[in-house]
Structure formats: structure tokens, C-alpha cells
């Protein structure tokens, strides 16, 4: 075992022996973020918004209540705003100070989101960051970066790709990637389908 593994194990053991934690609660917290609370939640929201204009308008106007109605509320999603990408505007979300991220809809953030390269460059050179993700936006597209410095959390509503007319909510949700809801990616059409 590595030093850090040993130290975490020792800390947990002391917390347990002193009666400060319920081990079953620890297991359930981990399981919740491994299995239940993740980007599939957000993908469902996006697919629903693509299919239902009325839902989309509510989602943009009253995001917290609308997300709560689907069961996606709570810890680190208490004050969520949904920002919509358009042909003229691309949104990207960052937390330059640490790792603020909308847990109920996206789960816990990936390593790159919490790392120096992303936190340092997203607010200064977002086009360079997008190139690291293999994305080149048109030069005239406006870019808006949301730095999550308070308890406001942000979910990007990506544009629905052409060629997905008539798709079911489930099929649409399957192309909504986590990165497309952070603004560092675009919905991913299956191989062989042009964007």
C-alpha cells in the first residue's frame, strides 16, 4: 500500500474508533457518487430540453425548480443555472479556485477539471483549451466562460446536432457527453454520422 492509502486507512480507523462516523454512511456516500449521481442525469435533462420546448423554457427560466422536479437537486446543485449554447454563443464552465461543479446533474468532476492546466487557461485561452479536446470553433463564435466562484453552479445546454430528427429521448441522451455539458465538448454522434 502507498503512504496515502495507509494514512487514509489509519484516519478512517481512528474516526471509527472514536465514534465520529457511521461506516455504512461512508459506503453509501461512495456508492451514491459511483453509481447514482453522474452525467447520465444531466444527459437526460438535455435530451428532454431538445425534445420539449416548453420544458426547455422552464429549465432556462427556473433551473433549480425544474431540475428538482426530476430529482436532480441537493448537494452542490442548490443554485444551478442552465446556460444555452447557440450558433453564435459557446458557454464553458470552470472553477479557477478549486473544483465547484454541479454534482446532482454531472456527478463529481473529472481530474482535468480540477487540474492546473484547465483552471489556469479556461478563463484566458478557452479556444486553446478546446483544441486540447479536439474542438475548433468558428472564429466569430462568441465564447462565454463562467467561473464558479460562489455557490452558483452551471450546466451547459449544448446544441442538438443535425441528423437527430425523430430520435427518442433515450437515444438523444446517449450522445450527450459529460464534456458537452461543461462546454469542453460537443454531443457525440455515432461513428459514420456527420455532424
Amino acid at each position, binding site marked *: 500500500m502507498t503512504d496515502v492509502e495507509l494514512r487514509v*486507512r489509519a484516519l478512517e480507523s*481512528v474516526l471509527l474508533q*472514536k*465514534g465520529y462516523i457511521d461506516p455504512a454512511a461512508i459506503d453509501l456516500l461512495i456508492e451514491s457518487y459511483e453509481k447514482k449521481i453522474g452525467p447520465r442525469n444531466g444527459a437526460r435533462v438535455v435530451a428532454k430540453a431538445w425534445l420539449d420546448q416548453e420544458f426547455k423554457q422552464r429549465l432556462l427560466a427556473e433551473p433549480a425548480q425544474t431540475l428538482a422536479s426530476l430529482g436532480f437537486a441537493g448537494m452542490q446543485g442548490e443554485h444551478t443555472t442552465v446556460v444555452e449554447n447557440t450558433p453564435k454563443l459557446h458557454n464553458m464552465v470552470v472553477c479557477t479556485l478549486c473544483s465547484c461543479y454541479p454534482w446532482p446533474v454531472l456527478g463529481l468532476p473529472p481530474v482535468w477539471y480540477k487540474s492546473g492546466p484547465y483552471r489556469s487557461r479556461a478563463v484566458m485561452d478557452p479556444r486553446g483549451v478546446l483544441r486540447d*479536446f479536439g474542438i475548433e470553433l468558428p472564429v466569430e463564435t*462568441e*465564447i462565454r466562460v463562467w467561473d464558479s*466562484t*460562489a455557490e452558483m453552479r452551471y450546466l451547459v445546454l449544448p446544441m442538438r446536432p443535425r441528423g437527430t430528427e425523430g430520435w427518442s429521448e433515450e437515444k438523444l441522451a446517449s450522445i450527450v457527453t459529460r464534456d458537452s455539458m461543461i462546454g469542453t465538448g460537443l454531443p457525440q454522434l455515432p461513428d459514420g454520422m456527420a455532424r
Partner: protein
Amino acid sequence: MNGPHDMGGVHGFGPVVPQADEPAFHAKWEGRIFALALAAGRAGQWNIDMGRFARENRPPADYFAKSYFEIWLAGLEAMLAQRGLVSAAEIEASRPLGEPRKVDAILQHDAVEAVLSRGRPTERPASAPARFARGDRVRAKNIHPTTHTRLPRYVRGRPGTIERLCGCHVFPDTNALGQGENPQWLYTVRFDARDLWGAEADRTLKVSVDAWEPYLELAD
């Protein structure tokens, strides 16, 4: 504090390296420390701003040498030691070296779901009208508190526009010090990239931060 955590606009970190199909936790201990920190926060009764300060308040070399969850471990150890709940010596011994302190709350298995789905909203009733309105030109103050703050360095002294009023929220700068929630109006302030990074900046770029009223003044 002007700490290592405040990374906006710092050069030299290199490219972003995404990983395909990334798991929530990359090792078992990462999940353990994540959950222990959430649960111990309940027993220790510290707030989110105190927890954040405990993570960022360390020498830059140490902060950069640690992985994200190693910083969580260090922050948790610091909070537990400060409150007399667990000492470094106890962690090294892997057993209690004294009687446990009485704690108000322990996160029980049956309460986890409710705690997660309720969260901890930070909006509070306003005790005074908002000083700024949508469209106002403001400037982020040029301030350098040595304690916890959420005004990143790259916007300090820069002019921006009030885009949105977010309500009155718990003020991290006092909350982190145990000086109370002291709710303040919170605004989304939009900056033109050229006001942040100079004439060469991307002309299509706007950046916003969410800033509490004490961070802002009317632009001249």
C-alpha cells in the same frame, strides 16, 4: 489569501489532458477520503468555507505536489486537529490516544440520502436593498485579504458589468473565519477579456465571476 489555488491566468501548466471513461474515483482511498470529509464535516460542524480554506491554506509547493484528493486529506486532517477531534499522533498510531470529544451530529446511513438531496442552500433573506443593478459598470476591488476569499486575483482592479443579481448569499470571507454568515448580495459580473488580459486578448471572449457586494465598487 493569494494562495496557490487561485490559478486563473497562470502560465506553465501545460495542456489539458482528458481521460476517456474516467471513474468517479481512481483508487479506493479517493472515495474513502471524499466520503470521510463529507461525514466528518457533520461531526466537526465546520462550514464549507472553513473546509475550503483548510484545503487552500498551505505553502504553494505543497499544494502543487499533492493530488486533488491528497489536498482533501490534508484539509480534513487540519480541521480535525484544530477542533481537537483527531490528532496527527492518533493517525500515526492508527488508534485513539484520548477520549473522544462529544459531537453534536454523526452522519448516519439512513440520513445520507436526505442530506444529499437537501444540500445546503446558501441564499438568505436580504436585510438591505442591492447596491448595484443589472447593467451597472463596476470594478472588482483591488484587495488582498490574507484569509479566505472568493474573489480571484485575475479580476481584481478590473472593470466589469453587472449581468445578474443572484440573491443574498452567505459571505465566505466571514463564514470561513467563524464570524457568521453575514449574507451579502451576490452578482454575476461579466468582464470583457481585453479588460482582463489586455489588447491582445480573444475579442470574442467574455468571462464572468460570481462576486459578493463587498468585492465590488462602482466604476469611475
